[in-house]
């Protein structure tokens, strides 16, 4: 990963994610704008009370797809650095599922790049959420 050194940081973890870790990675003296996104587990989804979630991940491919996204965002939006950490395993309400941090010389690119990463991640990265409600459980997005 030498070619990414210092500019791309991707992780898939079964431990709690830390905002400061992602924040510190993207800091750079040439950058005036840092944008961070934190995706957390909500207590309600489509009107149903959620009790907890289970994240399943195809680890090797998920890491590869996350790295592709980070690199594409870096190059498309001219970002200085991208940190992308995703959680797996069992998560409770309020737990952090994903953190994205990006830095850029100018702020508009930071916002655009950060939002692009989370939008694409939800389409392409092989990670699956099983939502547990009081009345049962189901894999999200799986059925029409």
């Amino acid at each position: 990963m030498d070619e990414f050194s210092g500019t791309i940081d991707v992780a898939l973890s079964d431990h709690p994610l830390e905002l400061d870790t992602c924040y510190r990675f993207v800091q750079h003296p040439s950058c005036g704008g840092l944008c961070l996104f934190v995706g957390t587990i909500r207590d309600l989804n489509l009107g149903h009370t959620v009790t907890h979630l289970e994240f399943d991940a195809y680890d090797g491919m998920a890491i590869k797809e996350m790295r592709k996204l980070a690199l594409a965002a870096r190059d498309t939006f001219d970002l200085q650095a991208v940190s992308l950490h995703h959680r797996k395993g069992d998560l409770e309400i309020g737990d952090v599922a994903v953190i994205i941090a990006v830095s850029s010389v100018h702020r508009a690119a930071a916002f655009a790049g950060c939002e692009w990463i989370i939008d694409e991640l939800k389409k392409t990265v092989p990670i699956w959420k099983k939502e547990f409600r009081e009345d049962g459980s189901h894999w999200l997005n799986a059925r029409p």
Partner: protein
Amino acid sequence: MRILCFGIAREIAGGPGLQLDGIVGKSVRELRMALMREFPGFADLTDFAVARNEVYATDEEIIAAGDEVVIIPPVSGG
């Protein structure tokens, strides 16, 4: 050939993988058809993709012996 399953695919397969024979040398499209025939649950999904060696496979690609083939139901990370 052993095919790995994640998410709802595990429930359809009844475990972390499934056995599907006679697909080496066949296209990913043929694999998808065979899957839906043998495990009708896959036809009930919104959609599903196939990964070959940790990369999304196109329908035209040919399955080779030794490939790591994985069923990728609709993802929902983030």
